């Protein structure tokens, strides 16, 4: 990675409760309290923000250009400097980070939201697949993750009880925003070998982060979560070309982000399926000294398009609160961990 010429930090994070349905709210009605919350944490107003970037996907709720309606919640007049990615908000954060790095802005608002409840997310996600050879078969997201899980079991990397343990540990979180907490039955097979407990709950939610550069970050936050490195990598789209038991793109992104330079104490991994946490821990070489997903991760709450940004926000919050000094945050996109983003966050020495 090119030398980072400016220190940039996550200075605030806010998120909504993640709920199975938010039918009584439009997207902007769901998002707006989160935007107000994150701005309140810094005392900033929309007009103070140098750059705004969001992530969402119109297919989830079947609403074309919903991201332009969501912008109503920001208060975008007089016209603001703004951008959008049709991806998880973690990638919007990446864009905002590059904007701050360029010196064009000192602060950025990053938000993302997803309403999966109006549709069937398992089927919606088939539309992101290779349209020639794969999408016509309508392989849903659980089916593809199950193929990956079976490959892991065949390779001796895990077994069904171990996978169940990952779900149980994730949902033992004290995160009050999570959709599922506490003891949840592991349930029947959804697509074998994955059971209900191995799959993420389907829910609606939103999240927002504020980034700031240099001294501005110190003014806005008593212990900024400095982004020491951030990188994202993608693998071949053909599932049968990849080794599904490994994630070389995650490892490479982590290496480029500097994750392996010094020990980590916390990792927030975006693993929507229990088996994917196995892949990520293996790819990142995480051992028992790293606390994985204290927030509960995606197995406790997985609002599409926001769950990756939430990983960064949760890791940053732990640094803000002094519960972590050096944390890794990961976000994923696509089937079977196709694309991966890794950020390394640090707090100032205490």
């Amino acid at each position, binding site marked *: 990675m090119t030398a980072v010429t400016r220190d940039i930090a996550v200075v605030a994070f806010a998120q909504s409760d993640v709920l199975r349905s938010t039918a009584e709210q439009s997207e902007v009605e769901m998002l707006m309290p989160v935007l107000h919350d994150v701005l309140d944490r810094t005392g900033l107003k929309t007009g103070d923000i140098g750059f705004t970037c969001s992530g969402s996907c119109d297919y989830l709720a079947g609403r074309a250009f919903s991201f332009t309606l969501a912008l*109503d919640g920001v208060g975008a007049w007089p016209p603001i400097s703004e951008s959008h990615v049709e991806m998880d908000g973690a990638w919007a954060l990446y864009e905002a980070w590059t904007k701050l790095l360029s010196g064009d802005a000192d602060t950025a608002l990053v938000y993302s939201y997803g309403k999966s409840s109006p549709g069937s997310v398992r089927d919606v996600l*088939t539309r992101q697949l290779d349209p020639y050879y794969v999408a016509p*078969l309508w392989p849903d997201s659980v089916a593809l993750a199950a193929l990956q899980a079976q490959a892991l079991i065949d390779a001796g990397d895990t077994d069904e009880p171990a996978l169940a343990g990952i779900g149980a540990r994730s949902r033992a979180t004290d995160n009050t925003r999570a959709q599922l907490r506490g003891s949840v039955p592991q349930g029947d*097979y959804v697509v074998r070998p994955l059971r209900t407990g191995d799959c993420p709950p389907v829910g609606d939610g939103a999240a927002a982060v504020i980034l700031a550069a240099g001294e501005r970050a110190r003014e806005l936050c008593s212990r900024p979560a400095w982004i020491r490195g951030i990188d994202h990598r993608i693998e071949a789209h053909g599932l049968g070309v990849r080794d599904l038991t490994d994630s070389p793109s995650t490892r490479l992104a982590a290496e480029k982000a500097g994750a392996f330079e010094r020990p980590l104490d916390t990792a927030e991994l975006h693993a929507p399926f229990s088996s994917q946490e196995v892949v990520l821990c293996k790819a990142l070489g995480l051992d028992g000294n790293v606390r994985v997903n204290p927030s509960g991760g995606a197995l406790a709450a997985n609002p599409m398009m926001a769950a990756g940004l939430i990983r960064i926000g949760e890791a940053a919050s732990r640094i803000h609160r002094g519960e972590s000094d050096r944390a890794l945050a990961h976000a994923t996109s696509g089937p079977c961990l196709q694309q991966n983003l890794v950020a390394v966050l640090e707090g100032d020495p205490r």
Partner: protein
Amino acid sequence: MPEVLKAPLVVEFPFTRSLGPVQSAFLTGLRERVVLGVRTRDGRTLVPPVEYDPVTAEEIRDLVEVAPTGTVTTWAWNHEPRRGQPLSSPFAWVLVRLDGADTALLHVLDAPGPDAVRTGMRVRVRWAEDRVGAITDIACFEPYDGDPAQPTGHSGEFEAPVTGIVAPARLDYTYSPGRAQTAYINALADRRAVGERCPSCRKVYVPPRGACPTCGVATSEQVEVGPAGTVTTFCIVNIKAKNLDIEVPYVYAHIALDGADLALHGRIGGIPYDQVRMGLRVEPVWTEGGRYPDHYRPTGEPDADYEIYKELL
């Protein structure tokens, strides 16, 4: 709060996609019951074949036939087939490495149950009866305990190759408009237009979307506006819309309802199209059972002064 409004929403679209030379040969081959791969420069055979090497990104065109038999590299049992999936009775999703290939193809396996499936098992292609040049020309895979089938060394050249596919897609949603728009739609059912006022800038938005786009705050104070309003700007439509039983030309206008700070749009009727003008005063015309005004017609009042509506164009 009244009950949340809900309505089914179907998004349906046929994607017409053209094929590159390698994809065309592969899908045409399936139509002719021939499975083709593509060879990379380092000697690997990719099935399904792609146009560019996934590692080096170089263009690859060296087609090679592989066998319709192969080995399962991983699988997942689907006891509840979903719409669009290749089989309607329970089946296994499989990645299959065909004999002669170095990569695996995603498809489904017709097997009696999960106990009959394992990684490493041998399978063969079951061809669809009607084949058109699509991945679904492979109906599915089926268990197979014979020797690897021998490819015939097909060149990959076919008569009448397919050059494109039409991929239909359908997604079903249950649409909910949210709090503000629910209130608006419910009021419309009583033939009232009810907007919402921004607590900060005091503007009244009709229809309301729950937020003031200028201030970024929630609107909640409900304000009844209209029923009459002023044409702030308009256009003359000369194109007949599909499924719309309206004679052209007709006028489509921005109408600022009295008391609203945002113009909504609607059709203007009851006046020749070439007599519609900015400032024209109009009122809604409802039809029996209509959920919203069918159109707006002149009230006969004098035209509004431009100064009054110039911010609402």
